[in-house]
């Protein structure tokens, strides 16, 4: 019986890769455990092992082919006695024609990992900074972040990037792609593996008049550097009586990724947004990622910039403008509605938008607000929305106690109590460290159904 070899995934977030090199030729015998090919991803090169014994009957994807989607059949293994026609049959049955190495044809991106909500709903970028008729271009959040850094580094010689793997390796999540080539090792600096070390060096560089962008591979590792972020960066302006400041950006992936366990999957939004002296930003779309990162780099205060690993590869429309910035501290109404306000930030905006679609089919008009900035918090936009809808549901993947939703609920009680027709409800992650098992991880995170149910509940439906 023929066996298909599928394009493997190095990690749950990998969507495509390159078939770098076949180590076996068509017709060669392979034994389980043999290395038959090398696969390159944006993170690493890996060796592909044969799982079954047999003959490499047909290579479906040639050496050097880029952009091969995960789970695409790349070869067929024949059992003893089968001939190549069986392989052809399998190949045509799977609908995958052999792809030549040149020219490169990017394969369609694979479905996102299980815990990620399905395809994004089209999001209108904020209108306030975009003139009518502005050309839009589709780009990933990853590219938008890179462009923001590159543009600010061109604009201001004091801006530089430092962190683990940011230079030679182009970033653990490939956010700093091309920056070393353009700006050189003086301004794109690979550091030793010590978050408290390089975060501290960054704070000192800010004291010394530069504007560092400190990249944490993820904010989980920034726990080690939190003393520098809070006790030094956030407090220095105040404690020096305004004499010294730390204008800098701490950025990196935050929140639950996919199948990486409790110590790599947590949201620090509530932690940092409690601290006076810090600004905290957590964008959803590529346009916001670009516009807010540019603003964060220019801001004279230290800014914690919380990205999301699962959003890096997602594409959004970004305006083609010479100098596109989004003000820190302004929420964005992504969808207007009259019956209930759904408040979200970062990847939780996905839940809100999808829930709004579902609610619309049931005759409930939901307003969706993307907070974008968590500190300062745009309470004015939230209060104005509740004055209209009289109901609110907050959505976040982080834990409930003292979370972003808890803060918003308190503000609504203080400032909009008489406008509320129902208590503010919070949709959050479960109050447990993130489990590893796929089913448990899914259960630990909010779902669109949770949001729909909560919205209906506050509408008494």
């Amino acid at each position, binding site marked *: 019986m023929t066996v298909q070899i599928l394009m493997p995934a190095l990690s749950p977030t990998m969507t495509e890769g390159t078939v770098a090199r076949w180590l076996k030729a068509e017709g060669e015998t392979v034994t389980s455990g043999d290395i038959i090919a090398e696969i390159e991803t944006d993170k690493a090169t890996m060796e592909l092992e044969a799982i079954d014994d047999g003959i490499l009957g047909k290579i479906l994807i040639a050496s050097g082919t880029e952009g091969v989607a995960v789970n695409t059949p790349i070869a067929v293994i024949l059992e003893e006695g089968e001939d190549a026609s069986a392989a052809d049959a399998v190949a045509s049955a799977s609908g995958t024609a052999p792809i030549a190495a040149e020219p490169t044809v990017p394969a369609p991106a694979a479905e996102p990992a299980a815990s990620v909500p399905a395809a994004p709903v089209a999001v209108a970028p904020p209108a306030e900074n975009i003139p009518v008729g502005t050309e839009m271009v589709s780009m990933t959040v990853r590219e938008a972040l890179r462009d923001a850094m590159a543009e600010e580094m061109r604009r201001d010689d004091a801006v*530089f990037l430092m962190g683990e793997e940011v230079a030679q390796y182009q970033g653990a999540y490939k956010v700093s792609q091309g920056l070393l080539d353009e700006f050189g090792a*003086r*301004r794109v600096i690979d550091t*030793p593996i*010590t978050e*408290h*070390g*390089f*975060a*501290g*060096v*960054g*704070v*000192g*560089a*800010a*004291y*010394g*008049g*530069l504007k*560092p962008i400190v990249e944490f591979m993820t904010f989980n590792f920034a726990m*080690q550097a939190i*003393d*520098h972020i809070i*006790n*030094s960066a956030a407090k*220095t*302006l*105040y*404690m*020096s*009586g*305004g*004499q*010294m*400041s730390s204008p800098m950006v701490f950025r990196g992936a935050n929140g639950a990724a996919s199948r990486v366990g409790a110590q790599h999957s947590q949201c620090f939004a509530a932690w940092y947004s409690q601290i*006076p*002296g810090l*600004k905290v930003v957590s964008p959803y779309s590529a346009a916001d990622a670009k516009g807010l990162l540019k603003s964060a780099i220019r801001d*004279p*205060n230290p800014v914690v910039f919380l990205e999301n690993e699962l959003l890096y590869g997602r594409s959004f429309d970004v305006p083609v403008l010479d100098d596109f910035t989004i003000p820190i*501290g302004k929420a964005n109404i992504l969808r207007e509605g009259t019956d209930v306000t759904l408040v979200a930030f970062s990847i939780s905006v996905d839940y809100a938008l999808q829930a709004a679609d579902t609610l619309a089919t049931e005759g409930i008009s939901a307003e969706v607000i993307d907070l974008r900035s968590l500190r*300062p918090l745009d*309470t*004015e936009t939230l209060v104005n929305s509740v004055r209209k809808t009289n109901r609110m549901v907050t959505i976040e993947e982080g834990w409930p106690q003292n979370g972003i939703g808890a803060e918003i609920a308190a503000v609504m009680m203080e400032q909009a109590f008489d406008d509320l027709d129902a208590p503010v409800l919070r949709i959050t992650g479960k109050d447990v460290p993130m489990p590893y098992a796929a089913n448990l991880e899914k259960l630990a995170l909010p779902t669109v159904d949770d949001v729909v149910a909560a919205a209906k509940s506050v509408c008494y439906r």
Partner: protein
Amino acid sequence: MKSPKSSATDAKTTKRDQPPGPVCPLQNAAANNIRQVIDDQGKLTGDLPEPDIAPEKLLHMYETMVMVRAIDDRGWILQRSGRIEFWIPHCGLEAVHNGATLAYEDDDWIVMGYRHPGVMLLRGVPLVQLFAQFFGRDGDPFKGRRLPTLMGDRRYNIVPTTTQVGSYLPHTCGMAMAAKIKGDATNFMVMFGDGSSSRGEFHSALNFAGVHKPPVVFICENNGWAISTPQSTQTASATYAEKGDAYGVRNLVVDGNDALAVYSVVKEARDMGHDEGATLIEAVTYRMGYHTSSDNPDLYREQADVDVWVPWDPLTRLRKYLERRKLWNKKKEDALWTRCKAEISAAIKAAEAMDFPTPATMFDDTYEEQTWLLQEQKAHLLADIAELERREGQK
């Protein structure tokens, strides 16, 4: 030198098997590989040559060291009498920070620890500013936001120190890196205690310094104690300096109670910084006083441990050296102490006469601009205060 005694002598225990009496390591400096210029009598017996320092500069340093001692004497009393909340004594530690500061130019940057008022005075910060901070009054450029003795002033190229010991070692590397990137020739010095050597940041900073060779002199002020933790509990290394070997950072040990020796080795390290990179200097000294006003050293050390350091008092040694050079005498000494005490009294009087920081200033400098939340809280607080004053006025 006086060694403050605790009232809680009951807590002291008597050892049954008396070990050989404690010995001051400075007494056998050569054997202990400790660089030295003068001995306990101010004689030129050490391995280092006598540094070439202009007499007026030398005298200014000595006078500052005496002022620093007088500030500690008075600060302790102010704390014990309840006039200031907290005190971090620095008695016995005057040679390290004064000798090191003298080795730097005024446009060089110093990142100081919290036992180093001489850094401020040698850079020309007015005495009254120090006391304004101790009392948390209006004349404090930090606007009443830092503990007493957590000093610094950007206008004098002195980074205000933090209580997160060791955290500022990478900051210093970052500042030096910024200077390098900007292409300016500034030099940097950072002072920290022996306890900080156990912090992760010590290793990160030294590692960074070994690789990137920033113009930084790291001065580890080994005063024997990290609160109650002695060197034997802090590290298994024979010296703190030798930790630099692991990172490829030049290092040496100096007599931290010999201001001339400190000056010599720091000056050399500073001058070679831009070519050779960083140096780690361990200055061997002794904390004669309490860790802070919240401490009681009688719980963990014997008076005899302290007493062996008395003959090696940095002030006495430098005074004897100056007397040998006919630059100093008893009359000048008495006049100096009288002047220092009078200036301190005047500074205290002036500082205590200052207003407290106005409540409105509490909201400044959290950010470069005020957020809506700060504006709202400020308006509320000021309205409450105005209402309170109105009611007080009606009584």
